[in-house]
C-alpha cells in the first residue's frame, strides 16, 4: 500500500454526462453537488424561519396571501384561528427550520461541499481515497432529502417536537400503529420520516468523514507533511474525526426512538408509563433522560462540526487578504484539537435543568468553562494575524472579518450558559436562540459566504461579482445583528423560546416591540440574501473568467487550472513549505506558494 490509493482513478476518467455530472466519483463534482443542494435547502430553511418570525412578531396577524405561497400551509390553517397559523403548525415551523439548517445546509455545505472540493486539492491528491464511497455519501443524502420534503405533506405534517426531539413528546405512540401521536399533532408520520431522514444524513456524513480521514492521512503529495497542511485541512480532518466518533451514538439513538415510535419498544418510556387525558401507555422500561444524553453526546460536538471548518477556512482567507503569514499556526491547530477533545465531555451543559444530578452539572460546568479557552486563543491569533496587515476589502475578506467579530459575541455569550446558576435563568429562553444564531448564522454562515466568494473561481472557473458581493455584505451584516442581537435582551428578560404567542404573558409584553423589530429585520435580511443567490447563479454565466490564482494565494489548490480537470494536477506537486509564506520577497510577488522554488517565476 505504498502508492496512493487515488491513483486508481486515473484510468476511469468519466465519459458520459451521467457519470460526469450525476453519478460522478470526482470529488470536485460531488462537492459542487453538495454545494447546490445546500443552497436550495438554505432557501427552504430561510422561508421557514421567516414564517416563525412572522408569528412571534405579529401573533395575531392573519397569513393572508402568504397561505398560497406554501402548498403545505393551506391545509394547516384551521378555521378557529381566523386565517392565522395554528400553534401546532408553528411548532412544526421552528422544528423544521432548525433541522433543515443544521442537517441540510450548514453541515453538508461545510463538510460536504467544501470538504469534498478542497481536501484533495489542498493536499495535492488526485482524488479522495475512496471515490465510490464518496459518491455514495452524496447519494445517501437523497433519501434524506426526499423524506424530509415528503414529511411536510403527510398526515399531521412534518415533525413539530423541536429539533431536539425530546421523549416522551416525540416518542409516545398509540398502540394501533397508525403513527398518530397522543402527545402532539406533529409527532406522527412526519416525525417518523424525520427520524429516517436524519439516519440517512448520519450515514452519509459517516462515509464522508471516513473518506476525509483516510485521504488526509494517506494521499498527501510528496513534501506535504502534516505541519505543512493549511488550517482548512486541519479543521476538516478534526471535524471528520469528531463526526466519526459522535455520529454512531446519534444513529443508535435515532433507531431507538424509531423503534419506540413504530415497533412498541420503550427505550425512552419510564417504568410507570405516561398518560394523555384518559389514555395511558403501558409500562415502559427506559428513561426519557437517556435520549437527552445520547442526543447531546452527538449534538454538542455537532456545534463544533458546524464551526471548526469555518474557522479553518476563515484563517486561510484572512491571510490571503491581509498579505501576512498566519499568526500562531501550531497554537491554532492545538486549540482546534482541544475544542474537539473537550467537546466530548461538555454535552451535559444542555441538561443543567433536566433533572440530572446537580453534582454532574458541576462537572460539566467546569469542562464547559474550559472549552472557552481554546476559542479565546484562536480569536487572539486571528487578531494578531490581521494586525499590521495590508487589508484587501474583498467580499471574502469582509465576510471573514464578520466571522471573527461575530464569533466573539457568540463565544462570550456561551460563558453565561456555562455558569450553572445563570443558566437556570437563560435555559430555553431567547438568550440561547441568540447564542446559537451568533455561532451558526453570524459565524458559520458568514464563514460559508467567505469561503464561497474565495473558492468559487476555483470551483467554476469564473469569479463572483465583487460589487454584488459587497452590496450583499453591508446590509446582511447590519440586519443580521438587528435580527439576532435583541434576542439576548429578550432572554435576559426571561422570554421562553418556542412560544406561539408571547403576548399572553404580562412579563413579556414590554418586549413585544423588540420582537416586531426583529421580525421586520429578519424579513429584510431574507430579501437581501437574494443578492447572494443571484451572484452564485449569475456568475456561472456572466462572471469574469478566473485565472489559476486570482487572489495570489499560496495553497496547492491555486496551482491547478480553474476549474481543475479530472485528476486535478498536471504533475504531482512537490511541496516545499507551509501555505503561509506571505510578506516575503517572492520571485514576482509578495508571497511564495507551496511549490515555488525561490527565484522561480510563478
Amino acid at each position, binding site marked *: 500500500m505504498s502508492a496512493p490509493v487515488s491513483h486508481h482513478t486515473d484510468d476511469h476518467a468519466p465519459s458520459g454526462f451521467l457519470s460526469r455530472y450525476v453519478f460522478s466519483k470526482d470529488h470536485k463534482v460531488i462537492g459542487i453537488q453538495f454545494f447546490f443542494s445546500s443552497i436550495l435547502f438554505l432557501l427552504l430553511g430561510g422561508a421557514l424561519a421567516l414564517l416563525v418570525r412572522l408569528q412571534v412578531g405579529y401573533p395575531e396577524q392573519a397569513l393572508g396571501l402568504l397561505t398560497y405561497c406554501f402548498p403545505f400551509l393551506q391545509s394547516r390553517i384551521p378555521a378557529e384561528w381566523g386565517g392565522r397559523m395554528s400553534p401546532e403548525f408553528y411548532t412544526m415551523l421552528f422544528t423544521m427550520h432548525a433541522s433543515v439548517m443544521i442537517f441540510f445546509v450548514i453541515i453538508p455545505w461545510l463538510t460536504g461541499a467544501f470538504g469534498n472540493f478542497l481536501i484533495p486539492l489542498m493536499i495535492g491528491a488526485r482524488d479522495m481515497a475512496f471515490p465510490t464511497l464518496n459518491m455514495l455519501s452524496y447519494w445517501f443524502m437523497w433519501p434524506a432529502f426526499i423524506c424530509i420534503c415528503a414529511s411536510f405533506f403527510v398526515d399531521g405534517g412534518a415533525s413539530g417536537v423541536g429539533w431536539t426531539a425530546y421523549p416522551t413528546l416525540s416518542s409516545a405512540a398509540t398502540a394501533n400503529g397508525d403513527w398518530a401521536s397522543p402527545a402532539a399533532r406533529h409527532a406522527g408520520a412526519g416525525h417518523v420520516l424525520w427520524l429516517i431522514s436524519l439516519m440517512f444524513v448520519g450515514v452519509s456524513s459517516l462515509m464522508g468523514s471516513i473518506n476525509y480521514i483516510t485521504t488526509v492521512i494517506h494521499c498527501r503529495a510528496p513534501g506535504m507533511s502534516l505541519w505543512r497542511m493549511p488550517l482548512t485541512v486541519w479543521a476538516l480532518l478534526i471535524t471528520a474525526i469528531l463526526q466519526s466518533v459522535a455520529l454512531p451514538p446519534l444513529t443508535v439513538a435515532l433507531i431507538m426512538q424509531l423503534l419506540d415510535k413504530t415497533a412498541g419498544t420503550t427505550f425512552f418510556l419510564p417504568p410507570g408509563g405516561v*398518560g394523555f387525558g384518559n389514555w395511558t401507555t403501558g409500562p415502559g422500561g427506559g428513561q426519557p433522560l437517556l435520549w437527552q444524553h445520547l442526543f447531546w453526546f452527538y449534538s454538542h460536538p455537532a456545534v463544533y462540526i458546524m464551526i471548526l471548518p469555518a474557522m479553518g477556512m476563515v484563517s486561510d482567507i484572512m491571510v490571503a487578504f491581509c498579505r501576512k503569514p498566519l499568526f500562531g499556526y501550531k497554537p491554532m491547530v492545538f486549540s482546534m484539537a482541544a475544542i474537539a477533545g473537550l467537546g466530548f465531555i461538555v454535552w451535559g451543559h444542555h441538561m443543567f435543568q433536566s433533572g440530572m444530578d446537580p453534582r454532574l452539572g458541576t462537572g460539566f460546568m467546569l469542562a464547559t468553562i474550559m472549552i472557552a479557552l481554546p476559542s479565546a486563543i484562536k480569536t487572539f491569533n486571528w487578531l494578531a494575524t490581521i494586525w*499590521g496587515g495590508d487589508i484587501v476589502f474583498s467580499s471574502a475578506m469582509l465576510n471573514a472579518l464578520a466571522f471573527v467579530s461575530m464569533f*466573539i459575541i457568540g463565544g462570550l455569550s456561551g460563558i453565561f450558559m456555562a455558569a450553572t446558576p445563570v443558566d437556570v435563568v437563560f435555559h430555553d*429562553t431567547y438568550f440561547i436562540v441568540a447564542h446559537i444564531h451568533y455561532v451558526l448564522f453570524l459565524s458559520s454562515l458568514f464563514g460559508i459566504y467567505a469561503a464561497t466568494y474565495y473558492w468559487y473561481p476555483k470551483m467554476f472557473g469564473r469569479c463572483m461579482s465583487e460589487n454584488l458581493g459587497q452590496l450583499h455584505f453591508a446590509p446582511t451584516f447590519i440586519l443580521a445583528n438587528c435580527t439576532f442581537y435583541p434576542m439576548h435582551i429578550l432572554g435576559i428578560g426571561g422570554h421562553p423560546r*418556542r412560544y406561539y404567542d408571547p403576548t*399572553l404573558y404580562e412579563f413579556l409584553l*414590554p418586549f413585544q416591540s423588540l420582537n416586531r423589530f426583529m421580525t*421586520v*429585520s429578519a424579513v429584510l435580511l431574507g430579501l437581501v440574501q437574494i443578492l447572494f443567490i443571484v451572484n452564485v447563479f449569475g456568475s456561472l454565466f456572466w462572471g469574469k473568467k478566473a485565472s489559476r490564482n486570482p487572489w495570489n494565494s499560496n495553497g496547492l489548490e491555486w496551482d491547478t487550472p480553474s476549474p481543475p480537470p479530472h485528476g486535478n494536477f498536471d504533475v504531482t506537486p512537490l511541496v516545499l513549505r507551509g501555505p503561509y509564506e506571505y510578506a516575503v520577497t517572492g520571485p514576482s510577488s509578495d508571497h511564495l506558494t507551496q511549490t515555488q522554488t525561490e527565484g522561480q517565476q510563478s
Partner: protein
Amino acid sequence: MTTQQIDLSEWTFWLPIAFTIFGIGLFILSRFWTRAWFATFTLTIAGVTALTVASPFVGWWLPAQGSSFSGEVDNLFLLIMFLTGLFFLLTEGLILFVLWNHAPKPGTAPLPIHGDHRLELIWTVVPGILLALIAVIQMPTWARMKGQGNESWLSARYESGGDKADLLLTVQGRQWEWRVRYRDPSAPPLARPLEWATHPEASDLHAVNEVHAYPGAKVRLLLRTQDVIHSFFVPELRLKQDMLPGRTVPTWFIPTVPAGTSNETRWEIACAELCGGNHYRMRGHLVIHPDKASFETWYSTAAREQSRRSRPPETGPLARKTN
C-alpha cells in the same frame, strides 16, 4: 396596549428599513472612501453595545428579584457581563483599529511574523485564570439553588428533605396545565416526602395553575409530570426545573417581596420546555401573600371549600389573554 397588527408607522417597522438603506449607502460610500468598511463595523458594534447599555433603562432587563437566591444569581450574571464585556470591547476594539489602519504606513510592508511565544502565553494564561475564577465562584450558588439551601457544593444534590420546609407541595405538569397539591401545613412532618408525591393523602389541598406562598416561607416543590417533559419556570424566582416523566424532581425557593408590601404579589409561571401545540398557553400564577397570616386564611378557606366540593378541581381553562 400594543397593537399586534403590522403598524407601518412604528419604529419597529421603519428602523430596519432605514438600516437597510444605510447599509446600501455604506456600500456606495466604500466605492470611494476606504474607511467605509471601518464605519460599517464600528456602527454595528457600537449599535449592539448601545442597545445592551440602554436596555435596563427602558425596562428591557432582568425581571424583578423575588427569591432568596435571585440576587446572588443576578450578581453572578453581572460579574460575567462585566468580564465578557471587557473582552468584547478589547477584541472588537482591536479589530476596529486594524480596519481603521487597514494598510501599513507608506513605504513599509506587512511583517512576516509567524507567531510569538510570549504573546501566546499571555492570552492563554490571563483568560484561563479569569475563566477558572468564573468557574469556582458560581459553585456555592449552584449548590444552594439545587441542594438543601445550606450545604456545601460537594453535597449538592436533589433531596427530599421536606421536613425542613414550611410548605410542601407537588406540582404535576400535564398538557397543558399545572396541577398543584399542598400538604396540610398542620399535619405532622413526613419521613419520606418523595413518597407523598405519588401517594396523595385525604387532607391534601388541590389547585390548578396557582401556587400560593408567603414571604420567607421555605417552599419545597416536588415536580412531576403525567405526560411529557415540562419545565417549571418563574422568572422572578430565577427558578427553572424540568419535570421528567417517571421521576419526582424536588426543588425549592423562599419568596421575597419588597418591604412594606401589603397586597398579594402575582407572578407568572411559564412552561420552559416544549410540550406540544399549546406549550405557550401553559401559564400559571405564583401568588405571594403579604404575610403568613393571610396565607393561612387563604389556605383554610380553600380547604373548607374543597371539603364541601369533596373532589379535586376539574381541568382548568387554558390560559387566555388578559390585556
